[in-house]
């Protein structure tokens, strides 16, 4: 479908139906994927989805609806949005949809045509390069997925916003299983990029294999250590940083008082060595676009500067509540998969969180640790963003004693509080990786607990 034409039609119909303001988000996503099962391409697919999200405003009453327009007409959708708004109670905090502003560059600034055109043949070739590099007599690739997406959206609103952006995303997730008699080891690797050609698949396969092989030697950690340093690989640290900072710096959570950083602007919330930036125009970021999903130009916002909380992130609603301008953080899209994302209204979220690289290599950081652990892979890295508490099971980790790796371990819990960890020195490595919502280095946190079996 022609998203511009549909967006224009829905906007016009909404105004005819009496909307005081209206906004249409029209999204086309094309995704090709290959799923690996036991070293072979088990499923190859092509998904094309078009959908719209319509915000219908009656004074201070807001309604939202969405549709693929497959089983209903634009007129049906507008009537439904109107009925939702009509029933809604007035939201006294609502100020306005965003005004038009000049976008931060050409709409295809973050679009890579070869990646957008990559279909199952190209993905098959890439993914089998990885499988061939990883597979060995005692190593297989039982699980994996590689997908490439083109994401093309338009935002029209009744205040004159006519904006949009095109981008591409590649995501891969692979596991390898190594077996030696009754002992098994699992390797896990992810890859993220906006450009398929930037991913070195044979190298990824080799890393996957060596990781799985190394876990064969891992033993269950049996002790309880306190006051240790934990070095987190970017894949793990990125999820924890995003969950915590993304939630605490969100103006939605600040305005509803659930953020521990409410009323903390200008206060020290982290160690003076830590700076965290939200960059909607990040050169490597997966959600980079010239406007956010409300049509507001994206930008770079320093959240924490040398440990001091400098700004929150704002979508247009929360910017109105706080009497400031949106920072271009009204988001619907997801770096992992944007299919179906038209079906929810924009909410306040990070674009790409960046932490500057430090000066030390991972090896140098390890050499400075007296007692600690290097975590390559958690079961799933999680933090309670309200209290900051975390307790994550390490599935692949290395024990560090007196600056050296002394053992490969698994099945132990790393325990701590991320708000407290941020206030102590955080050491960043000199190289950074893109993962999900973050571009960050390896990070070392101090004074944590490691609980063994």
């Amino acid at each position, binding site marked *: 479908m022609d998203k511009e034409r549909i967006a224009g039609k829905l906007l016009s119909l909404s105004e005819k139906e009496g909307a005081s303001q209206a906004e249409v988000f029209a999204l086309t996503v094309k995704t090709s994927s290959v799923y690996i*099962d*036991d070293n*072979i*391409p088990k*499923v*190859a*697919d*092509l*998904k*094309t*989805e078009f*959908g719209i999200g319509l915000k219908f405003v009656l004074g201070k009453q807001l*309604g*939202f*609806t*969405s*549709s*693929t327009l*497959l*089983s209903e007409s634009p007129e049906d*959708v507008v009537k439904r*949005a109107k*009925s939702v*708004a009509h*029933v809604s*109670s007035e*939201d*006294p905090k609502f100020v306005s949809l965003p005004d038009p502003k000049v976008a931060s560059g050409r709409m295809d600034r973050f679009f890579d045509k070869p990646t957008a055109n990559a279909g*199952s043949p190209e993905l*098959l070739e890439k993914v*089998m390069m990885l499988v061939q590099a990883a597979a060995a007599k005692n190593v297989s690739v*039982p*699980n994996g997925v590689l997908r490439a997406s083109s994401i093309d959206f338009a935002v029209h609103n009744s205040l004159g916003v006519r904006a949009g952006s095109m981008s591409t995303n590649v995501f891969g997730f692979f*596991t390898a*299983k190594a077996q030696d008699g009754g002992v*098994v080891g*699992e390797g896990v690797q992810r890859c993220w990029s906006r450009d398929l050609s930037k991913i070195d698949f044979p190298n990824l396969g080799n890393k996957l294999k060596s990781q799985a092989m190394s876990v064969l030697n891992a033993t269950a950690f049996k002790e309880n250590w306190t006051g240790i340093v934990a070095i987190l690989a970017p894949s793990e640290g990125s999820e924890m940083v995003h969950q915590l900072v993304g939630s605490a710096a969100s103006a939605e959570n600040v305005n*509803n*008082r659930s953020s521990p950083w409410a009323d903390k602007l200008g206060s020290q919330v982290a160690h003076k060595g830590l700076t965290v930036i939200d960059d909607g125009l990040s050169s490597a970021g997966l959600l980079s676009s010239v406007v956010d999903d409300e049509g507001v130009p994206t930008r770079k916002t320093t959240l924490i500067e040398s440990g001091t909380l400098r700004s929150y992130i704002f979508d247009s609603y929360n910017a109105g509540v706080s009497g400031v301008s949106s920072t271009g953080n009204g988001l619907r899209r997801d770096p*992992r*998969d944007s299919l*179906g994302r038209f079906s*929810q*209204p924009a909410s306040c979220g990070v674009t790409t969180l960046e932490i500057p690289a430090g000066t030390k290599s991972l090896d140098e950081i390890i050499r400075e640790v007296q007692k600690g652990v290097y975590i390559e892979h958690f*079961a799933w890295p*999680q933090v*309670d963003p*309200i*209290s*900051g508490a*975390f*307790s994550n*099971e390490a*599935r692949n980790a290395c024990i560090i004693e007196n600056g050296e790796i002394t053992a490969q371990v698994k*099945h132990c*819990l*790393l*325990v701590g509080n991320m708000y407290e960890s941020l206030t102590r020195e955080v050491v960043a490595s000199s190289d950074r990786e893109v993962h999900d919502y973050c571009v960050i280095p390896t990070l070392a946190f101090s004074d944590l*607990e490691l*609980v063994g079996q």
Partner: protein
Amino acid sequence: MLDAMSSAIERFSARDVLFADIRHEVRSATRLAVVNSALRKFDRTNRAGTVARVLVGECWGQASTTQAVTASTLKELLSEALRMARAGARYSKKRIEISHAKPLTMSVQQKMKENPQTVSDEEKLSFLVELDRAQKVDDRVINTNSVYDESRFETRLANSAGSRLEWDEIRMRAMVQSVAREGSKVQFDYAVKDGLAGYELVRAIDVNNFAGECGRGAVDLLSAAKPPSGEMTVVTDGDIAGLIAHEVCGHASEADEVVKGRSFLTGLVGVRVASDGVTLVDDGTIEGLRGTVPFDTEGTPASRTEIIGRGEYKGYLHTLETSARMGVLPTGNGRAQDYNHRVFARMTNTYFDIGKWTDEEIIEDTKDGLYVIRPTSGMEDVVGGGVQCLALKGYIIENGELKTLVRGMALTGKVLDVLKTVDAVGDTLQFSGGTCGKGEEDYIPVSSGGPHMRARMVVGGG
């Protein structure tokens, strides 16, 4: 539409195609959220899409679209799926004959007492406002969240075995989350009620109990202690037992993980894996539970599968493909998130079955231990046989009595070791609904449950 889909399948022929199906889905939902006494969200969504799958050798091709369903669109989807299946099949090592799929022609409409579509939006909003009010039990409750979610999934399916099916699934969900603050301490609690049901599920909620307890729970957690760390005796309530059931053995019993030898439970049918008191079941037919379905995504009727029976490993959860490969009947566990996602082996309602102890007897019989409640999330370890279960709170047990309240923690351990330490199983089942991902995505509605149980596990709390 079903005629057009059947017709497209019948006309679709190629020598190398072993199986094909077309699915058309319409997914509609109404969601309301009240935050701090004000309506923050009121959404109505409607997503419709069509997906075709084709099997060649042992590889599937799949194509989906949100374009209008016409004979031409369906033909194109099947052709595209075939092209991709053939591309994958170049690497194929075998042929999978899905000859045991039975042709079914059925139309199933969900039974419920009160269709939520007949309830006014004003009444739904009023319910949420009441939930919001009831959370404010203390000045320290500084943020209240109340959510109402009603969804309807309509599916039409035609396949090359000759099936023509259509059915719907209507789910309801009410959720509250309270945040409490005192000085720099911030904690939250939550409560959820959900199921495959009509509006009667909402009417059965005692607002003051449901939301008031949540508010009090958040306030109480402000003074909760850090839990002890290390291996210890753990008593779980039914919700935590359910999470363990789901993560401990549920995922590793999904047969796609078994046919490729990834699961640590591969080859264990007939082997003792747990103490006598442990029986683990997946059952997609239990009335009213969130994971209940009339058919799985492939059109196989839901069924009850005993995974562990009195400590002995019994069997796996199957799709059409895995059952063909293992020479057994499909169990109705082939599920997909939606038309944009793959079908593979998934759970429905997974639970530990009951034993003979009362809940009180288990606590009274425990000299030192930790009583754990309120699950937040879990993560399976299909290869290594470990587990991670996160919980929001619990109580230290001293001499058979619940004492100090403790805050968030993780439970972990080696599954086969943990199950062999189960020495007390309660006599009352408790279920809670949720959303299950496999690996890191592909989310589907499920529920899990169990009775109170006692075992040895490793605990770490933050």
